């Protein structure tokens, strides 16, 4: 026979997963998308972002999203008159869209950047470069992530 106490413990255990699920924001995908668009707007304003000149290199299949090598290189003569001013990397599905923003100039010699990033999910990574004439260029890379970076299941 089930005592009242046992019943209550069982009921609480059954109710717990439901409560945990309820914490996940149903608008998560939409919010992330809006955050990505906001970040893009903050970087480029209303200027058009064109494809090309930028090369974003990421492994297409990633075992561990906690440390992913990423290289951005931009075609540019890097002279005083024509150089890359800034490079930005954005993600679509990380909790925050920004990854890294770099400011450089003709003293860099080559417009390249190598770093290691965290990726929370299978997604598209975008690199945007701003040249000295104010134009924006971009490249995207599709990545498949099998183990996401530092987030519990269901929060992604």
């Amino acid at each position: 026979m089930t005592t009242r106490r046992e019943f209550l413990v069982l009921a609480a255990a059954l109710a717990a997963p439901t409560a945990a699920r309820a914490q996940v924001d149903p608008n998560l995908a939409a919010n992330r998308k809006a955050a990505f668009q906001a970040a893009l707007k903050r970087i480029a304003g209303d200027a058009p972002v064109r494809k090309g000149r930028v090369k974003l290199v990421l492994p297409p299949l990633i075992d561990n999203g906690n440390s992913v090598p990423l290289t951005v290189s931009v075609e540019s003569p890097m002279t005083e008159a024509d150089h890359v001013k800034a490079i930005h990397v954005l993600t679509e599905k990380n909790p925050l869209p920004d990854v890294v923003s770099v400011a450089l100039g003709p003293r860099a010699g080559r417009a390249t950047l190598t770093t290691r990033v965290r990726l929370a999910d299978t997604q598209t990574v975008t690199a945007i470069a701003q040249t000295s004439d104010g134009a924006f260029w971009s490249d995207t890379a599709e990545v498949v992530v099998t183990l996401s970076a530092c987030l519990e299941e269901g929060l992604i």
Partner: protein
Amino acid sequence: MARAVVTVPPNARRGEIVEIKTLAQHPMETGFRRTQTGELIPRDIIRTFRCSYNGTEVFRAELHPAIAANPLIAFTTVATESGTLSFEWAGDNGYTVTEIAAIKVE
């Protein structure tokens, strides 16, 4: 705790593009993780990185939580004159590290 490693070629020809690699020791805690009891672990990351060549800033990066722990930053610079390259990392909870490397330009 506060340690960093930089790789700069010791010698270079004038006008040569040299590659610089930097590695800082830092957990880069994102601020999105939780402990087993469900408390949020506060954010603790490196926010900015700067590289100056004889006092002139040549490279600056703004880092966000999506940068992996022990951030690696590799970039290039033109070897213009002999001197020192100084590297500065600054972040949350008063984290600052400065590293200096000498370069000889012929």
